[in-house]
């Protein structure tokens, strides 16, 4: 996976999990398999929290607000970390709009 995401994700987007993703979690880490790309990904605990919070209902902005509250972090900082991560997950079809 490219470290530089080219897929744009906006704060008003609503993301949901990809239809062809199989996911398991162990010790707070998600392992995802995307069938169409045949790619496996291991998410760190923070990325796993983002994955778990992505429910297809909330906007990215709402999701970041919740994570900022959970981790007692500034929303701007959370957005700066989470938006590129979401873009990578969209790029690899783990998430979709």
């Amino acid at each position, binding site marked *: 996976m490219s470290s530089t995401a080219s897929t744009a994700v906006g704060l008003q987007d609503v993301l949901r999990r990809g239809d062809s993703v199989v996911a398991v979690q*162990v010790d707070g*880490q998600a392992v995802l398999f995307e069938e169409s790309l045949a790619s496996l990904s291991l998410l760190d605990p923070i990325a796993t929290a983002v994955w778990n919070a992505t429910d297809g209902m909330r906007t990215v902005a709402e999701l970041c607000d919740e994570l900022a509250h959970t981790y007692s972090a500034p929303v701007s900082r959370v957005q700066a970390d989470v938006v590129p991560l979401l873009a990578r997950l969209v790029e690899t079809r783990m998430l979709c709009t």
Partner: protein
Amino acid sequence: MTTAPAWSAAQAAAAVPAPGCTAAGDLRFSNHGGTWAYRSRGFRALEHTFRIRSDDGDCGPFLDTVFQEFVSEHQVAVTYSLVTVGSGEARRLALYANEERICLARTESRRLSILLWHVNQQVIRRTSPYNVLLHAAAAERDGVCVVLPAEMESGKTTTVAGLLLAGYRYLTDEAVAIDPESLLVSPFPKALSVDRGSWPVLPELQPAYTPVFTQWQVPPRGKGLRGTAQPHRPRLLVTPRYVEGAPTALERLSRGDAVLLVAQSTFEFAVRARRNLTVAARVAESCDAYRLTIGDLPTAVVLIDELVDDVLRRRS
């Protein structure tokens, strides 16, 4: 986030065609009208059932030895026929699986190596629907099952051979078959295929007869080896990698890394991704997982032995 191509090593091993193989079905087996100098008993290796016959009896003792752990009264699905075709300069050694010609070789070494390759491929193809099949070696001591998943040429066979010489019982050096419900590993006790590069560190395993020039085929019984283990659940995952001159060392893996390791080692992972990933997670949750860099085999065996002792201590 770590991303890796799925099932890289396992898939590559399953997909590689045997050099010299013809496309299946282009030449049918109909050219042997003679008698068979050798007929094997029936064999069952996981879900692959087969027998072998040859118009040359010389290979019989070798084949009986190599497949001795698979003797079965089960009805067989595949009959391998070894047939000599032509004479003089045009003499070739054919191998058929039922009616389909698998190869036309110039030497017996080549034909036998392709036969062994074909048996492994069929085991994988026929067993994958029913078991999660890892590209891995495995052995057991005192009820602790050690699974050694790794890519080709990483040292799986050498490592498991070292464990067998240290008193472990054998499960496989090629494909670990895990029942998706019980997680029990069924033995696939093929003869160990010891590559030439490992011969100097395993001299006690040298067979009396080596018709496949590039590998020793060592049955897991005799020469101080204790034979095949009963089915066990995996308890240790150790992925070995031989690095010449490197210090032999263990590195603990997270359970997430262990899931990736199992998933990437699963033959035909994507075909049954949901089942396979679920089993990978269950295996990872029930195992301690390590990366083992191997500079020398005796130290590697001691380190694995200590891991097994540690599991046994915690169990008691």
